[in-house]
């Protein structure tokens, strides 16, 4: 009978690599959340240095994203994971993508803050944007905590957390229209619609991460919200 030890050693290394990949995903989550926090501070405080910091800092997140992708491919090719390991690998790939996109959205917000820092502002719009940011940052954290703790109940809370973000984003059109016809203010407000849209997308990515967590824990993938049939469950 073949000596089982070499195979167990190979499996041990595989599981160590899997744990390292997951650690790096959580590091990506921290970087993405921090980038979003800094980007909103740059916007609210009109601080170009913070905006520059966010833009430059995205390289670290991108490098980690690419590193995870490269090692993910190696693990798939060499270790052919199955069962929970396979689901975790799938989740790592998806969550890595979502977090990288959140980082890009933070960069977009930072760039908007730079483009608009000499323009007049509207306090209502700023207040709504701050409110949105105050929801989506905890959403990122909650989704990543649900992942780390394998907490299905926490993951299932994400769609409810996302609801005010969607509502505020929809209301942003009215706020922008209420800014009147003053050219510089309109230019600033149009840029803030882009910021609003970025924040709304960050919320969606956080929900997507939570969907991945649910898949990891249950083995069944389903979208928490169905964009093509919005409110279908409430139509009764």
């Amino acid at each position, binding site marked *: 009978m073949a000596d089982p030890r070499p195979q167990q050693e190979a499996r041990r290394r*595989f*599981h160590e690599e899997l744990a390292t990949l997951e650690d790096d995903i959580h590091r990506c989550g921290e970087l993405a959340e921090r980038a979003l926090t800094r980007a909103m501070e740059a916007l609210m405080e009109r601080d170009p240095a913070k905006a520059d910091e966010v833009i430059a800092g995205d390289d670290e997140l991108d490098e980690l994203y690419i590193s995870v992708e490269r090692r993910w491919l190696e693990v798939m090719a060499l270790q052919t994971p*199955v*069962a929970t390991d*396979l689901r975790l690998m799938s989740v790592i790939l998806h969550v890595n993508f979502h977090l990288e996109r959140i980082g890009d959205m933070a960069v977009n917000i930072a760039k908007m803050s730079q483009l608009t820092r000499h323009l007049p502002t509207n306090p209502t719009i700023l207040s709504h944007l701050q409110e949105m940011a105050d929801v989506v940052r905890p959403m990122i954290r909650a989704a990543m905590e649900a992942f780390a703790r394998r907490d299905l109940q926490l993951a299932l809370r994400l769609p409810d957390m996302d609801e005010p973000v969607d509502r505020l984003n929809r209301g942003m059109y009215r706020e922008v229209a209420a800014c009147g016809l003053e050219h510089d203010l309109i230019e600033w407000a149009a840029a803030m619609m882009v910021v609003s849209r970025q924040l709304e997308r960050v919320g969606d990515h956080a929900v997507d991460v939570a969907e991945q967590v649910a898949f990891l824990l249950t*083995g069944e993938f389903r979208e928490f919200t169905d964009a093509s049939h919005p409110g279908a469950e409430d139509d009764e």
Partner: protein
Amino acid sequence: MVTDEREHVKVQIEARHQERPAPRIGEPVFRLESVTVAYDEQEAIRDITLDVPANQITAIIGPSGSGKSTMIRVLNRMNDLIPSARVSGKVLYNGQDLYEPAVDPVEVRRRIGMVFQKPNPFPKSIYENVAFGLRVNGMTERLDDRVEQALRAAALWDEVKSDLRKNAYDLSGGQQQRLCIARAIAVEPDTILMDEPASALDPIATQRIEDLMFELKDQYSIVIVTHNMQQAARVSDMTAFLTVEVSQEGKQRTGVLAEYDRTEVVFTNPSDPRTEAYITGRFG
């Protein structure tokens, strides 16, 4: 009296065979009900209950000593050849209890062919290897056609058609295994049992056997025992995972069925933690 009954059951099995289609794809060709096999006092497998679907590939996986080979040998009464073996429970084949005293085990093995781990051609020509079983079973009409048909079905014809008189031992290991498959299917079985059919083959020969299994399942139900979990994942529709239960004194090791489900379920979301631990390597 027993001889008459055997003749009767043989005719019944024959009639069922000729009356095909029976069973339809996915319907059980085998039904195991609480099957236990013991060698002397040692239970090799205990209380196995499962249905093997027709025209699909069913893989049996599990660690060494979990009774995989014992289980597959139950399906064509190969354990009869071991004097100490006792089988209890029911093994129904197309509804017929294979272990009824009146059932002729030779007829069973014709209907349910078997391919072993190591290619075991006879020391004869390629042609004779395939023709042998046909002659023994009185299927001598259009013998050349039958031999060709079996070799074609085993994806070997193009490689050997120019020299059918060549000794089978001169073929490569992969070709010898496909010759054994041709020999098994020449006598027109319903089912082919494969006990580690590719474990002695290189990756290319293994792939040919796996491709062949896909081609054969339109006509045959296939049960395969394999140590290679990726092979089970690649080729099978259903996977049974056998695990080992050790008695309290640690003296007896018995195979039990931990999980039986569609292969994609077993390899992505197994329901039994023992399956999960085994296939992900989190054991020992």
